[in-house]
């Protein structure tokens, strides 16, 4: 702003605040007065605030920054008696500098990065933006470095690049969700033929891990490494995620397009308006994944199975969840994932994706008294959009501005027993086209050949 500021924050938020100022182009340092969390709790004694008032005054009149920003990225080097020794030293360096995730990584050697870059449709120096909140510059090469470290392959790179583009979209609000204590993790849903070409999972165990479908783990791990190493989301200093979930690989999977009943459009079409058959990603942040037993028992008709199952899903959604307010207007309260078997039963009973959403929307409304008892009314007052703030007038309270906000995709193992509820903590649901390089099919062919050769060896 060009105006001197001081931030009143918690002791453990120093890293978060420094990342935030770095992301807006300042040196990674700022005037702060910090207190333990206990000082910010209801009923806290504020004597400490009075005792330290001069620190606020000094911060606005005397403070100077002692930090400078580093410049261009460097090449690093380790030496070892053997290759294995050097590899171990490289991994020790990753851990010592907080660049890793605790599991072994591939050092991003020039050879490996060049190999990965064969999957890029853009030049290696092409800039996608700055990774929030820390603000490191995101190039295609930076994506390739992360994917190399995560054990990825060239044919995965187009999906990672599209996911990063979606992540960097201002409507994704990555600068908030990276730092928040709420532990959101990116979910990347892929539509289009690329999913099968690179062996992304859309069936049993799609959240992973799955050695038969390794792409999602590598792509998601690379995105997570970028969130940490470029974006500064280091637990306890850059991301205040109290628990953190799905933070080794995030969640990267494909919709089971072959399992869509006749007349049902893929998620990419009905949420983002992409052409059917286009390769694209859809990114949102989830704060949890709940398995719901949706199948009935004993004597039941198909209609009872279908309707009771939907009621059970709606029951999981019908909660006084403050996260719903973040994506109330443009985002989503969450994604329901149903298998092709369940989708087929629903279609047999005449349901479409939209009519399922409408059913869930109507039956997930929360009595306003529940919202009051849970203290959600104050959160509504400071919600980001007018629709979210005005929703306090509705009883029962709809968990989103409109039914269309509810995500619904067909994926998972071909089984009727369960549904998955990916509760969102997201401001937007961002779609991006996946751009393929010339020669992409050759990369896929090489991967298939390598896989076949390794299987036989």
């Amino acid at each position, binding site marked *: 702003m060009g105006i001197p500021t001081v931030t009143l924050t918690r002791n453990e938020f120093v890293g978060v605040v420094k990342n935030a100022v770095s992301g807006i182009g300042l*040196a990674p340092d700022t005037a702060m007065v910090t207190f333990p969390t206990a000082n910010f709790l209801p009923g806290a004694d504020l004597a400490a605030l009075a005792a330290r008032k001069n620190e606020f005054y000094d911060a606005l009149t005397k403070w100077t920054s002692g930090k400078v920003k*580093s410049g261009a*990225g460097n090449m690093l080097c380790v030496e070892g008696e053997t290759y294995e020794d050097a590899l171990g030293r490289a991994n020790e360096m990753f851990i010592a500098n907080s660049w890793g995730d605790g599991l072994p990584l591939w050092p991003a050697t020039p050879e490996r990065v060049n190999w990965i870059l064969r999957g890029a449709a853009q030049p290696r120096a092409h800039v996608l933006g700055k990774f929030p909140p820390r603000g490191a510059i995101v190039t295609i090469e930076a994506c390739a470095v992360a994917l190399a470290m995560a054990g990825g392959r060239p044919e995965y790179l187009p999906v990672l690049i599209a996911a990063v583009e979606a992540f960097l979209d201002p409507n994704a609000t990555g600068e908030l969700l990276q730092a928040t204590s709420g532990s959101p993790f990116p979910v990347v849903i892929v539509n289009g033929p690329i999913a099968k070409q690179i062996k992304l999972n859309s069936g049993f165990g799609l959240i992973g891990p799955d050695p038969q479908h390794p792409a999602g783990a590598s792509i998601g791990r690379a995105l997570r490494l970028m969130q940490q190493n470029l974006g500064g989301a280091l637990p306890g200093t850059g991301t205040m995620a109290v628990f953190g979930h799905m933070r080794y690989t995030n969640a990267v999977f494909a919709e089971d397009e072959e399992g869509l009943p006749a007349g049902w459009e893929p998620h990419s079409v009905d949420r983002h308006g992409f052409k059917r058959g286009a390769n694209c990603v859809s990114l949102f942040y989830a704060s949890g994944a709940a398995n719901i037993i949706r199948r009935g028992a004993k004597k039941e008709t198909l209609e009872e199975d279908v309707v009771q199952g939907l009621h059970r899903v709606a029951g999981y959604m019908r909660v006084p969840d403050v996260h719903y307010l973040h994506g109330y207007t443009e985002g989503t309260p969450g994604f329901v994932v149903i298998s092709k078997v369940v989708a087929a039963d629903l279609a047999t009973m005449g349901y479409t994706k939209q009519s399922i959403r409408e059913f869930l929307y109507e039956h997930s409304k929360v009595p306003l008294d529940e919202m009051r008892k849970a203290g959600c009314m104050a959160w509504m007052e400071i919600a980001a959009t007018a629709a979210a703030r005005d929703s306090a007038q509705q009883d029962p309270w709809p968990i989103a501005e409109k039914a269309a906000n509810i995500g619904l995709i067909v994926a998972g193992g071909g089984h009727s027993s369960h549904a998955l509820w990916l509760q969102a903590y997201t401001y937007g649901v961002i779609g991006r086209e996946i751009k393929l390089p010339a020669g992409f099919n050759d990369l896929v062919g090489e991967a298939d050949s390598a896989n076949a050769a390794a299987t036989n060896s």
Partner: protein
Amino acid sequence: MIKLEFHDPSGALDKAIPHAPRLESFAGKKVGMLSNGQWQAYRMLPMLKTMLEADFPGIEVISEDNFPQGNAFIGNEDVAQQVKDSGVDAVIIGNAA
């Protein structure tokens, strides 16, 4: 010896722009408050306002109620512009995050 060279995964940062210069004093200055509306901001920021006004006669403190509140707002460009338009010389941002 085996030498292994690889990319630094922390990437590159732009050259930093300088922080805003500090005030020489609070005499005749206007200080604004920005709040996320959480973590007892409703108690702490007014307390700071009261202390500033007591310690620096002539200072004007614009309370947080004059600007949008909430994490969704206080970092955005519109609010930054509102703060600039208010003519404040310095800002205290709270709370706790």
